[in-house]
């Protein structure tokens, strides 16, 4: 009986901790959602309304209307994130396969170098990145966001994909070579289809990461609306229109919606990607 009681206590304790952490993570999201559904001007009514007394979609109408057209920023975010995903997958799959499969001097050192680059916070490199993008004539363009974001995704993508490739049986590549396929054909026809789950995980992480990227987007867009992604557009709205929090909240909800849907659908791949284990190279 004492043991059962102890186990139950442990269970209650664990659930309690998880509930607290979940509350801590989800509370801001909840607040944003209900704020977006409040009538503009009533966000800070006293006493604080944890559940709106009345619901309104007025803020969504404003955000989607001719004044803000957040759908343009969402479109830009989609374009940037999709391009980053494709570009990152192309680059990381090639670099990861090289590390996982080819024998060459300084292989481990190469992987460490790539990972070290990933450990440098983007804010440290924002100034040289700006200069580089400017020299390429890509300021205030979506390409100016896409190229650096691809680079940001190389370390994690390479790590994830290298682990995945290393886990594939080498017999398949040998069989393809004997069947008549040179290395790149083998990579394209045999390895890539088999690595689809890993590619999916890496792709989802790249998409989510680039969707929410703010600092680079703010730096490169330089205030031009046609080059703004969702996080920057929301900041611009809030600065321009006297912090109408209901509108800002509606913008945030709309920008999060695709991401939340994506995570819910592809959560298996996100978890797989985040928990890719250590493999001998």
């Amino acid at each position, binding site marked *: 009986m004492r043991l059962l009681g102890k186990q139950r206590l442990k269970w209650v304790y664990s659930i309690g901790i998880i509930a607290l952490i979940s509350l801590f993570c989800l509370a801001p999201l909840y607040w944003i959602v209900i704020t977006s559904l409040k009538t503009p001007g009533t966000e800070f009514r006293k006493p604080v309304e944890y559940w709106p007394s009345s619901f309104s979609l007025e803020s969504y109408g404003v955000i989607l209307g001719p004044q803000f057209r957040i759908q343009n920023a969402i479109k830009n975010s989609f374009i940037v994130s999709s391009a980053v995903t494709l570009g990152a997958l192309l680059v990381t799959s090639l670099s990861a396969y090289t590390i996982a499969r080819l024998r060459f001097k300084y292989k481990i050192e190469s992987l460490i170098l790539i990972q070290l680059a990933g450990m440098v916070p983007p804010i440290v490199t924002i100034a040289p990145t700006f200069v580089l993008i400017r020299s390429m004539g890509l300021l205030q363009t979506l390409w100016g966001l896409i190229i650096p974001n691809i680079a940001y995704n190389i370390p994690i993508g390479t790590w994830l994909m290298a682990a995945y490739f290393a886990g594939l049986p080498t017999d*398949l590549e*040998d*069989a*393809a*070579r*004997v*069947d008549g396929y*040179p290395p790149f054909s083998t990579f394209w026809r045999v390895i890539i289809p088999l690595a689809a789950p890993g590619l999916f995980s890496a792709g989802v992480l790249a998409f989510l990461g680039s969707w929410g990227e703010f600092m680079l987007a703010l730096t490169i867009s330089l205030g031009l609306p046609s080059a703004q992604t969702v996080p920057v557009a929301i900041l611009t709205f809030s600065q321009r229109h006297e912090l109408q929090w209901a509108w800002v909240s509606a913008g945030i909800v709309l920008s999060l919606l695709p991401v939340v849907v994506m995570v819910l659908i592809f959560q298996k791949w996100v978890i797989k990607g985040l928990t890719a284990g250590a493999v001998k190279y």
Partner: protein
Amino acid sequence: MAEVRVENLLKAFGDVIAVNEVSLTFEDGDMTVLVGPSGCGKTTLLRSIAGLEDVSAGSIYIGGQEVNRMPPWDRNTAMVFQSYALYPHMTAFNNVAFPLRARRVERSGIRSRVQRVGESLGIGKLLHRKPRELSGGQMQRVALGRAIVRKPEVFLMDEPLSNLDAKLRVQMRAELKRLQKDLGITTVYVTHDQAEAMTMADKLVVMQGGRIQQVGGPEEVYLYPANMFVAGFIGSPAMNFIHCSYHPDEFTLRAPSFQYPLPSRYADSLASIAPDQVVLGIRPEDLVVNLDPEPGATLAQVYVTEPLGKETLLTLELAATMVKAVAPPQIELGIGDEVGVVFDDDAVRLFDPETEKALPAA
């Protein structure tokens, strides 16, 4: 169809020499079996012929053409792997068709050839399935189909039966041998199973430590092993070895409680070598066990009996050595029983204990 020849082939992985200056010819149309224990270099040799390993030294010729610098996708060899190496994301049809697509065979041609090969291997109705939906035997046939469909010059088989259960393995052995004879394609077959090697081979190559120990027909290797390694590796149960001292005045071998008058065919070689010690080799089936031994006969004590159904395997204590003998299934013996043992003189083989090489007989 083509002859394959390797000359002074050396393959090293760092300091480890996997194939040590091997020279060998694989005759056109023959099934040559490379057999030996794990790590003997047989798979490395096979992979070198396929082009999957770069050789450290030496040459490989396929159909008279040196192929050292030729990549595997240009060598016109086909390989069947131990794991089958079927592409899991493709159907059986696409697995078999894969090498044809590399050669840009037209679609209708691919379809007819794959279907024909599938029918001949008994998997015609399974071609729509993916590998995970197939049994071990079916996967093996798909792997064979993929090798056959492109009509290569050489088949390379790396222990293709070792993942099958015992019964299926025996069945597939016969089918594979028949298939190879029907197709007449030069085949290099690797196995660690000496029984499989004996049944499959036109020519047997026994390897150990990266070197060839003996090359010959299965019967020749079985009956006239070149050294103690070959004698002990080929044949199951293995050949018995009794370490004896040689007494030239009586032309006899002696060991504790054991004496063996030598057959005359060894007179010349023993006279020229004049060793002090000789190893006597005799296969279990060449020892005749007598329940009622004659006076003066060689005696042995039963250590354990193993009834196998069609025969009984006896472990006997003889000359301070454990030896195996094969007895009829109905024999009734218990542990500790004393029996007489008669050696078939024609089957006795002698070996030099230092070099382990077989002593020549007239």
